[in-house]
């Protein structure tokens, strides 16, 4: 399994508080990595640091072996063109219409692309998200769930090879969550690398290839789904049981009964 993002000793301080402490981990390419942990443990910050949106105070992030914050402008533009980011709170541009929110990444990365082609791509994406009626709306006119879907569509419109998603199915109704799940399944099937923060049992149990458990800003566990499920750390087991429910607690309890609980 090849690695494409590597975090080395990453520490992030926000407002005098250490949000991430000496986090080192590697993320596999072409797989779906799910970052889990209790609220406020630094998951969103870890995702933003890994995506190169927030620079860490200490440590480095290597993208295919190159330090992300020392990339040339051209390399950084290439990286941004091939990646997408969906924010927890959607972070749509409030002074732009939904059409412009989706069109801007294309206008920036492909200035030579004709307007008709941009329009065709935006319409196709909005149809995929059942939001064609909202094409000329401002974000403030949409519901929280609709905003979330637009945020996911914006992340995917450039047909990226790497997608970062912060709780993509959080705070939305089951039907909308299923729409988003469908999109994630599609890009995963195409071999796209996905790194997502999620509390959603369906994402963790059906889409995750790689799990990362973060507790109090430090890395508690990372590995394949099966490896992490076998982790004996009670804090990790608590997180897993909260997200995965019976799936995780059954396996780990069985392993501890078999005397395998002390090993990772």
């Amino acid at each position: 399994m090849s690695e494409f993002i590597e975090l080395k000793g990453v520490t992030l301080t926000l407002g005098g508080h250490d949000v991430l402490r000496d986090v080192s981990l590697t993320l596999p390419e072409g797989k779906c990595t799910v970052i889990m942990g209790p609220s406020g443990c630094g998951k969103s910050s870890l995702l933003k640091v890994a995506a190169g949106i927030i620079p860490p105070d200490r440590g480095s992030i290597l993208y295919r072996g190159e330090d992300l914050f020392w990339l040339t402008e051209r390399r950084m533009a290439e990286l941004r063109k091939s990646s997408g980011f969906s924010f927890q709170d959607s972070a749509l541009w409030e002074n732009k219409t939904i059409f412009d929110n989706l069109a801007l990444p294309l206008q920036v990365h492909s200035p030579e692309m004709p307007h008709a082609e941009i329009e065709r791509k935006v319409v196709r994406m909005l149809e995929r998200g059942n939001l064609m009626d909202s094409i000329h709306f401002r974000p403030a006119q949409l519901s929280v769930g609709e905003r979330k879907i637009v945020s996911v569509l914006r992340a995917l419109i450039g047909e990226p090879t790497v997608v970062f998603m912060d709780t993509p199915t959080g705070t939305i109704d089951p039907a909308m969550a299923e729409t988003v799940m469908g999109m994630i399944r599609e890009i995963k099937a195409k071999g796209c690398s996905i790194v997502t923060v999620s509390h959603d049992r369906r994402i963790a149990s059906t889409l995750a290839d790689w799990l990362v458990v973060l507790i109090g800003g430090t890395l508690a566990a990372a590995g394949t789904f099966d490896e992490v499920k076998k982790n004996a750390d009670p804090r990790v087991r608590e997180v897993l049981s909260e997200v995965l429910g019976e799936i995780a607690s059954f396996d780990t309890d069985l392993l501890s009964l078999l005397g395998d609980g002390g090993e990772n």
Partner: protein
Amino acid sequence: MIGALGRWANAKARDFSYALGFFFQVLKETVFFVRRRQVAFKVLVMQILFTGVEALGIISLIALSIGAVIIVEGGTILPKFGQTSLMYSILIIVIARELGPLLTAFIIIARSGTAITAELGNMVVSHEIEAYISVGINPISYLVVPRFLGVIISMILLTIYFDFFGLFGSFLVSQLVQPTSFSEYFTAILSNLQARDIISTFVKSLVFGVIISVVATFQGFRVSISSTEVPPAAIKSVGRSFVLCFLADALITLIYYV
């Protein structure tokens, strides 16, 4: 006590170097702005529309009022000292050299400076800036440079407009106080106008535009996590712009006229 003073001085030095770095980054991105054919050109047009065109009404009103006040006050006081001929010099000094650029700057600070700081501050809070970074848009290049150029262009054009309108307003009022022909009035104005008056007015409006836009955008980006930080940032933006414009005005006047 000494420790606290040291920490304060250290924080101030850090803030100053950060502001200086921000300013140089803005200058660098401004150089690349045209070359990159960015989609930010639309933002520049919108900024000129908001800062320049939409301020024309209030600028007209203030310029007319100032021109009228000078004519009325001057027309009352100067004849008592037998110095009626000084009226045109006073008009040039007050309107073109000093109040034109300074009052235009104050209007732009109050209208656009606060709006820019609040807009950028709210964008930081709602993670819109991070969203720009995530799609590969440099916020300085896309958000700051169009506002920087828009405010400077508007400041220069509005100052010229203020000066013309102030002088024209004073002509209109002079028709009520002491009727003069249009050609006689403007010939007297032009004969009192020197090249350095025009240059110093231009330099002042340029420098004020730089100050207002850089301070407003800088304070907007200083907002970090909460929307409650936005009003204090806007207040700081206004206060610092006022102080820096006054200082710059005094300095430029000293350079050109002393």
